[in-house]
């Protein structure tokens, strides 16, 4: 990593249900160059095998709260990518 870059931030990413099946894992620690948004994480996921199957705008939750894809990330955040909900 170049010494001129801002320090990387680490985000814990959680996948569930069909998304975990599709990408083949349920959680991952991602290092991102700030400033980074939820959308940046989604782009990283899409580059992985199976990631092309993620929808254009999946539901996302940051630290247990629903957020949109332009939400900024901070180090230590927990970002969950949520398949279509089916509770009830």
């Amino acid at each position: 990593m170049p010494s001129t870059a801002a320090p990387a931030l680490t985000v814990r990413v959680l996948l569930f249900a069909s998304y975990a099946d599709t990408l083949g894992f349920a959680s991952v620690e991602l290092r991102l160059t700030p400033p980074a948004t939820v959308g940046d994480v989604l782009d990283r996921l899409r580059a992985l095998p199976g990631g092309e199957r993620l929808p254009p705008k999946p539901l996302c939750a940051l630290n247990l709260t629903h957020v949109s894809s332009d939400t900024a990330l901070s180090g230590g955040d927990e970002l969950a990518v949520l398949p279509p909900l089916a509770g009830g």
Partner: protein
Amino acid sequence: MTLYLTESPLDLGELLASVQSPERGGIACFLGTVRNHHGGREVLRLEYSAYGPMVEAECARIVAEAESRWQAAIALRHRIGRLKIGDAAVAVVVASAHRDEAFVACRHVIEELKRRVPIWKREVYADGSVEWVGSRAAGQQGSELRVTAGFGGETS
């Protein structure tokens, strides 16, 4: 702290007892039970899974919002794990001074749960197939996803 998720059978009597009081004369309840059919296919059983910590947080928000808006006492519980046909998956109980508030708040809570709470359902059909409910439809949440066998992905 209230736990909104449980792996045990739902106990409607317990939920009722938790919201009843002498000032509240109207109690509306909703129970969602596992049906034996879905989308024209025969369902044998199903399994609910959840993002547990967020379920607790989001249910607490939904309940607090509705209790304040309708002056009601609300109990909410969702079961996860393996369920059989006929088992109750979700229960909402709302007690208020009058029935109008109780009905409206009860309906609101179940709609909000379905819209906001991260719970997923995998159905096992009589033809042997298994499917995550909601993931085939190309709805507003996106493109077609099919369940695939896992692979050992890694990143970072």
